[in-house]
């Protein structure tokens, strides 16, 4: 009896010790005490040393047992602080709950900040154990806070799901890429390659933006303190800097001026329908969604230097085997006499070899594509006796078009960006036995003079439902 009593009391004492010991961590990690951030926007503050950080929260209490897919209005809080951790610390006291980044899906840096270099911020984020390495990294042409405000999709009500899904389009368009924080950091610490991030921007023609502009106008005219979301970063800046008095004085003209601006923008964008010039913030899309992610932001070390357009991004994803299927349009008699839309499928990984036997690295790129004709203009008939011949010509035209596009893109990387953003260094390393030999080769400088042998072999079939 005494022995069993001793056992029971020992167990109770041990239990008590552990309850006491772990209760502190339990309280910290308790879901009731945590506010989950879904997106983080980082802008440079007016004082160059500070950051303005926007936190987007989802009100988890809005999700009911029966309807977990209903949309909730995101809550936005903005803090200006010296670092991300300081901002989190300050906001903890404001929110009354502990900020947790474990459900953060995207991190958005503004273009202004990215041009100054984001090494310290990215390192700070990577050292945060709550943040997943699979979190997407976006560089926005507007302010990060504006991007977050406008970031919503009418087709996907749940914001977190939308954030999960938006990079998926890279697999079937090649116009963006699924760049994550982990991938970005890997490249950042790697001295041989450039770096890339998803390029985002506000859709200046979106109906949301138009509405919000008019709302903004009306709200400004009715109440001086209430600032609504604005269509563009520029507008928002003018609002914030101008204040209520200046906006009131411009009330009579502002609405018509904005409409005129938007009309001009529409006209300009109507001309801008080539993938070679489309980037986020300058696309010919009119829709409900206030933001768009097209193209990639190019970094040399940690500094944002340039953009990849939709067509450049397609070349990048094609070289790296990231895109499964995509569509190109050939509208140049140099390649083919008629306008064609071709759906291409990239089933085999590209074959890349790098010859480093001389001081000018020779990069050989071989890509095999299969495809089908998606659109034919000019009433072409492929079902006649010349069908086979014509398809060969189309295949040849597609191959030459892709080769030229890839060559243009690659020469851009050596001449304009001056860094290896397609990770050719990985293939060059094969030719060296030790890291010392590889370091001595000085890839970063040699890459600038690299010569490219691009070979694209496209096999096009007709497969039109209606051949005439």
């Amino acid at each position, binding site marked *: 009896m005494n022995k069993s009593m001793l056992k029971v009391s020992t167990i109770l004492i*041990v239990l008590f*010790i*552990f309850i006491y*010991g*772990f209760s*502190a*961590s339990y309280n*910290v*990690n308790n879901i009731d005490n945590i506010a989950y951030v879904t997106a983080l926007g980082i802008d440079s503050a007016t004082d160059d040393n500070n950051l303005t950080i926007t936190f987007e929260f989802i009100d988890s209490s809005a999700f009911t047992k029966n309807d977990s897919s209903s949309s909730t209005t995101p809550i936005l809080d903005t803090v200006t602080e010296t670092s991300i951790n300081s901002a989190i610390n300050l906001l903890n006291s404001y929110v009354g709950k502990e900020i947790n980044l474990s459900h953060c899906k995207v991190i958005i840096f503004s273009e202004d900040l990215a041009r100054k270099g984001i090494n310290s911020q990215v390192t700070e984020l990577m050292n945060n*154990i709550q943040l*997943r*390495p*699979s979190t997407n990294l976006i560089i926005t042409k507007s302010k990060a806070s504006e991007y977050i405000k406008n970031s919503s999709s009418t087709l996907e009500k749940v914001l977190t*799901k939308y954030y*999960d*899904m938006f990079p998926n389009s890279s697999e079937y368009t090649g116009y963006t890429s699924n760049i994550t924080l*982990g991938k970005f*950091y*890997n490249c950042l*610490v*790697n001295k041989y390659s450039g770096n890339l991030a998803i390029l985002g921007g506000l859709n200046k023609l979106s109906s949301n933006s138009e509405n919000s502009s008019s709302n903004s106008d009306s709200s400004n005219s009715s109440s001086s303190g209430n600032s609504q979301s604005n269509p563009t970063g520029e507008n928002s800046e003018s609002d914030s800097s101008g204040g209520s008095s200046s906006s009131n004085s411009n009330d009579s003209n502002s609405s018509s001026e904005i409409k005129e601006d938007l009309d001009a923008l529409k006209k300009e964008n109507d001309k801008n329908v080539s993938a070679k010039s489309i980037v986020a913030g300058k696309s010919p899309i009119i829709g409900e969604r206030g933001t768009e992610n097209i193209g990639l932001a190019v970094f040399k070390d940690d500094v944002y230097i340039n953009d990849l357009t939709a067509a450049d991004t397609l070349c990048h994803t094609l070289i790296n085997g990231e895109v499964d299927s995509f569509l190109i349009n050939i509208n140049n008699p140099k390649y083919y006499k008629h306008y064609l839309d071709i759906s291409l499928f990239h089933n085999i990984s590209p074959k890349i070899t790098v010859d480093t036997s001389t001081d000018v690295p020779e990069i050989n790129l071989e890509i095999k594509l299969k495809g089908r004709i998606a659109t034919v203009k000019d009433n072409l008939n492929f079902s006649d006796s010349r069908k086979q011949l014509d398809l060969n010509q189309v295949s040849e035209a597609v191959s030459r078009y892709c080769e030229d596009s890839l060559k243009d893109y690659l020469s851009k990387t050596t001449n304009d960006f001056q860094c290896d953003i397609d*990770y050719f260094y*990985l*293939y060059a*390393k*094969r030719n*060296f*036995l*030790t*890291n*010392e*030999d*590889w370091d001595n080769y000085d890839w970063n400088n040699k890459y600038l003079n690299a010569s490219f042998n691009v070979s694209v072999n496209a096999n096009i079939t007709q497969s039109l439902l209606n051949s005439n």
Partner: protein
Amino acid sequence: MEKINNKEAISLVVALCTNVTILLSSQVIINDCSSGSLINSCLISLIAIALTLVICSLYRKFIGLNILDISEYLGGKTLKTIIGIIFIIYFLFTSSILLYRLINCLKIIYYPITNIVYTVLLFIIAVGIICNLGNNAFSKANYIILPLSLLTIILAFIGNAENFDYENVFPIFGNSINHTFITGISNLFTFGGINYLFFLPSKLKNPNKFLRISVLSIVISSIVLLFIVTTILFMFNANLVEGQLFPFYSAVRYIEFGTFFQRLDSAFLLIRIISFISFLSITSNLCLNIFKEIINTSDEKPIIYPFMLLLFSCTLLPETIKALDSFHLQNNIFKFLFFITFALGMLILIFAKFKKNRKESSL
């Protein structure tokens, strides 16, 4: 004492090697050899297999005996005690280094506010209970847990395959030929389980199968090592493999099977904790057995709690002596202890074999 069967014996050695690899040696190998880590892993695996064959051939003369019995045969009670204490120090310190690393990782991830003492205590009490159960409960538990542990390693490899940069294996010889082939041999400490082989014959139900058990367990450990090093090397740039978290855990954080199966690192860590408790119970049980043999006692229960207290204190040493809280120092202590104990074990076996041969020839 209840003897263990062949499968249990293999799982004991594999568990010892796997835990050392995940928590410490994979990071050391990649830091030392960079892109040459795979070649280095293959090299040390081959050396480990060769050394295992040597140990087995030396044990042919001493079937069913452990290194303590052989030391007693060679140098009497004094040598037996010295060897016993050296092996206890090896298993005690290596276990506490690994436990400290795991606890630190848990503190960063889950228990930021909890005092490290409580987390260590949780492990120590679990191991104390297993040791108290006796009847080789530890080997039976390990036999159940090990497949789960190996499954997580294979899943981590498969799950991360889409994130692999296969070109990270180049330049093939890494930092230098010297680093990969000569100084890299010191990474043999990954196979900490080899030292357990010195005690295995006396625990086996069928000591005649010692050769088969030993070679099979080292081969499985080599495959596990290759899986772990490959996963880390293909995932990260070699200069990224530093920091407080063990790199295999960092690699597991990247695994996502679609949008539904995400954050598998929590499950991985849970299995790692259970697997590590199993590892601690194996080493603790061995230390208790050695101690029991040195002091000639039949019941080990009275020494369980003092030993647990010793393990608890050793684990908390880096908390008080901050110099010990250094990855490089911990790694050097581990290597030093491994090579000292291994060399001693081998020397005793060699000299004992000479002695026996001489005796047999004189007869």
